[in-house]
């Protein structure tokens, strides 16, 4: 077994918040409170179940996993794990856990809890949307088929040591251990509350659940026993729900609330953004998101590569970005710029209607053709679809817009012969974890090109699938850069085949009260979406 013990990782971990700002970060005093607003009710805070962008970051503040990311970045660092050994073949991972980490109920967290928590997620009875992420752990198939109640690939060596055996080398495994579905829960509390554990969450996290009034508010209190000294910064966070974004904005402007969880309402975006008074309150950041048009390669005429390339050249992406008031940047490849593996030098298909028309003619469609463009029916998606429709009309493609409910579009995309084109807005891919592989398998790989899948282009390239598997087999951290290069070339190769027309990458704009402090990056954290709650501090408590 190769000792990688990652002394580096441990140091970055210990001083993660400190390195992020400057050396005075440690001097930031704890205290104060903040109010975050949301439109929708908070759904479950059970880490095995919760899977929306509202509860995602809240769960991260209540629970911990073996791994996490440096605040404001996509850089993996150990969390509950103190150190790790990765075998040279990439099939065994041994983690030493921090000692003295306590659940909110006072009991010490041990390796048994880690095993229990992951098995609970994988257990079909839990109905976890994240079960599929753990497919690389040995024994996964048996457990999914309900043949066993435990994963043979997880072994408790001693109370503070846990060993994972994988059925295939998988470089994304450490990311999977940073995803909410792997977070550690205490068995006794889960059994006590049953399906209501999500309303009475007990974890090891920086905050504890204090109050939950359905439809009104959720209150987190600082975990005074948190194992990472000096964190979190706030004494209390109140999440007020049922607040329309417009009303929330008015309240923020009056100083009644501190963070707009749902962002700046589109109707007010330009007005607020161009107002110098608010310049210090708005933070812009990239998002692991791409909005794209899929072209079903199994439906004519999109089985023809030239037609797909023509569509790529026909769409005026700058105009689409203007339609949404510049809340995005034009995209030319599947990966967003904030994702490792993004190819800065790749130029993609430039906007060129004349060339597009020529390509169509070459493909035998000099007079164009008729097709359908599916889109979700909430603003701004119909307007974006209309812009794309006009662009396509300019090269002779008459696309009828099918503006439908989200679930209907998702359903149509999952059928082999239903939706020739889909504008992905409102349903588009936001990465589960910051690794390029997460942008391939489900949405561009053969595995996703199945009935009910998310590969709406139905694009399946066995050769690229093989390259993807090979890339994910490179588990040696020393080869991480090489692995990312491999992924970069996979996505460029995909663009040659053009099953998608990437349109834009959404930017995030978080608006927060001036009394909140912390580096800008934590207000648009790429993983702790929307805000890294643990590291935000109150200026008035200093």
């Amino acid at each position, binding site marked *: 077994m190769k000792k990688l013990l990652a002394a580096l990782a441990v140091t970055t971990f210990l001083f993660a918040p400190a390195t992020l700002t400057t050396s005075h970060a440690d001097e930031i005093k704890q205290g104060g409170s903040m109010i975050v607003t949301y*439109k*929708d*009710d908070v*759904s*479950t805070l*059970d880490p095995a*179940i919760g*899977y*929306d962008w509202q509860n995602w970051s809240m769960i991260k503040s209540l629970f911990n996993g073996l791994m996490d990311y440096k605040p404001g970045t996509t850089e993996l660092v150990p969390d509950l794990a103190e150190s790790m050994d990765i075998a040279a073949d990439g099939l065994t991972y041994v983690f030493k856990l921090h000692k003295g980490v306590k659940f909110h109920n006072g009991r010490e967290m041990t390796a048994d809890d880690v095993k229990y928590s992951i098995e609970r997620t994988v257990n*079909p*009875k839990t*109905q*976890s*949307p*994240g*079960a*599929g*992420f753990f*497919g690389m752990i040995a024994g996964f198939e048996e457990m*999914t*088929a*309900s043949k066993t109640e435990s994963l043979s690939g997880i072994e408790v060596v001693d109370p503070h040591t846990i060993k994972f055996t994988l059925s295939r080398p998988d470089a994304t495994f450490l990311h999977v251990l940073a995803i909410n579905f792997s977070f550690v829960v205490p068995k006794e509390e889960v059994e006590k509350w049953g*399906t*209501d554990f*999500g*309303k009475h969450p007990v974890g090891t996290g920086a905050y504890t659940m204090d109050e939950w*009034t*359905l*439809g*009104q508010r959720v209150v987190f209190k600082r975990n005074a026993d948190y194992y990472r000294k000096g964190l979190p910064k706030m004494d209390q966070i109140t999440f*007020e*729900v*049922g*607040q*329309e974004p417009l*009303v929330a904005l*008015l*309240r923020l402007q*009056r100083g*009644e609330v501190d963070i707009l969880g749902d962002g700046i309402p589109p109707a007010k975006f330009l007005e607020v953004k161009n107002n110098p008074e608010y310049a210090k309150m708005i933070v812009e950041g990239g998002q692991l998101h791409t909005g794209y048009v899929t072209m079903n390669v199994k439906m004519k005429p999109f089985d023809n590569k030239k037609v797909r390339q023509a569509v790529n050249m026909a769409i005026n992406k700058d105009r689409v970005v203007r339609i949404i008031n510049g809340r995005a940047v034009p995209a030319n490849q599947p990966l967003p710029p904030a994702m490792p593996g993004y190819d800065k030098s790749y130029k993609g298909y430039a906007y060129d209607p004349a060339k597009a028309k020529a390509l169509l003619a070459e493909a035998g469609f000099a007079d164009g053709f008729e097709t359908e463009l599916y889109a979700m029916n909430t603003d701004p998606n119909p307007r974006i679809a209309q812009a794309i429709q006009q662009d396509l009309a300019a090269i002779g493609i008459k696309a009828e817009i099918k503006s439908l*409910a*989200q*679930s*209907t579009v*998702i*359903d*149509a995309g999952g059928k082999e012969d239903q939706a020739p084109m889909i504008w992905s807005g409102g349903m588009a891919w936001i990465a*589960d974890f910051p690794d390029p592989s997460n942008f391939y398998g*489900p949405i561009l790989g053969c595995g996703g090109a*199945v009935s*009910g899948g*998310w590969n709406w282009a139905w694009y399946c390239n066995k050769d690229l699938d093989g390259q993807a598997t090979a890339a994910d087999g490179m588990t040696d951290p020393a080869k991480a850069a090489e692995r990312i290069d491999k992924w970069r070339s996979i996505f460029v190769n995909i663009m040659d085949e053009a099953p998608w027309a990437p349109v834009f990458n959404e930017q995030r704009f978080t608006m927060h009260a001036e009394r909140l402090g912390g580096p800008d990056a934590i207000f648009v954290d790429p993983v702790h979406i929307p805000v890294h709650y643990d590291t935000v501090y109150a200026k008035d408590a200093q």
Partner: protein
Amino acid sequence: MPGLGIYVLKRFGQAVLILLGITLITYILLFLLPADPARQIAGRSATAQTVENIREQLGLNLPFYEQYLRYLASLLQGDLGRSYIQKSEVTELILSRLPATLLLMAGAIFCELLIGLPAGMLAAVKRGKAADNAVMILSFIGVSAPQFVVGILLLYVFAVLLGWFPIGGYGTFWHLVLPALTLGLLGGGWYSRMMRSSMLDVLRQDYIRTARAKGARQARVLLVHALRNAILPIIAMIGLDIGIFMSGVVVVESVFGWPGIGQLAWQAIQRVDIPIIMGVTLVAACFIVIGNLLADIIAPFVDPRIELR
């Protein structure tokens, strides 16, 4: 009221049939939606196996009638099911929102009456005069103005600009004023028009002339003699309003961030959370039926000439 017991029983029987019909229609409509609950619960990263497991566990693979019968069976035990998105018992979600909805309903009806009754009476007495015209024009505006326009306007002027009231939310009396007033202004329009025409009818009648001939003063004629009869249609209307408000005032609750049933329904519809939509529809239907029943039962107490059959 000897016939009351039998009457209520009969109406109750009817209500059960109506509610049963409503569950069937809603269930069919939601069943036909091309949204697959199993995939919704499973999320975008789930394997086909996970989706299949969930489908089986929830009985979504069963034929329609079997699913419906299962739903009815649990309904009989007071179980409205479990939300797909919110992952909570629907009964609990609805119950947690009842107090806010009840409070807003009471506040709104109070405002409606406070605005509508005097305005309607004034218009009837001053028929054809400037006051009548003013009331009729204002009530017309009230009736036709969209709730969200009035709501946002009140919110902007009285909460944002003047700062007299909190900007939305729930908890104190001051939070209630603006949403109740929004509903009151709009509903008050209806009430004033109804009160006016009903009052005009009554004022034309012989016993009013008799009262006047006896030398009763105007105030006494109106408040003691006329009002009692003129208010009958208003009572029926209050009954209907109870039903409507209890089923949730979606727009006003959204604008003011009021944690009532309407807001719950609106969130559920946007996220296609079928069990909540079913539950709220059923509860709303119950309240409408109860509201109507109440109006019918109260009527004979106000006007003994009305008989319940």
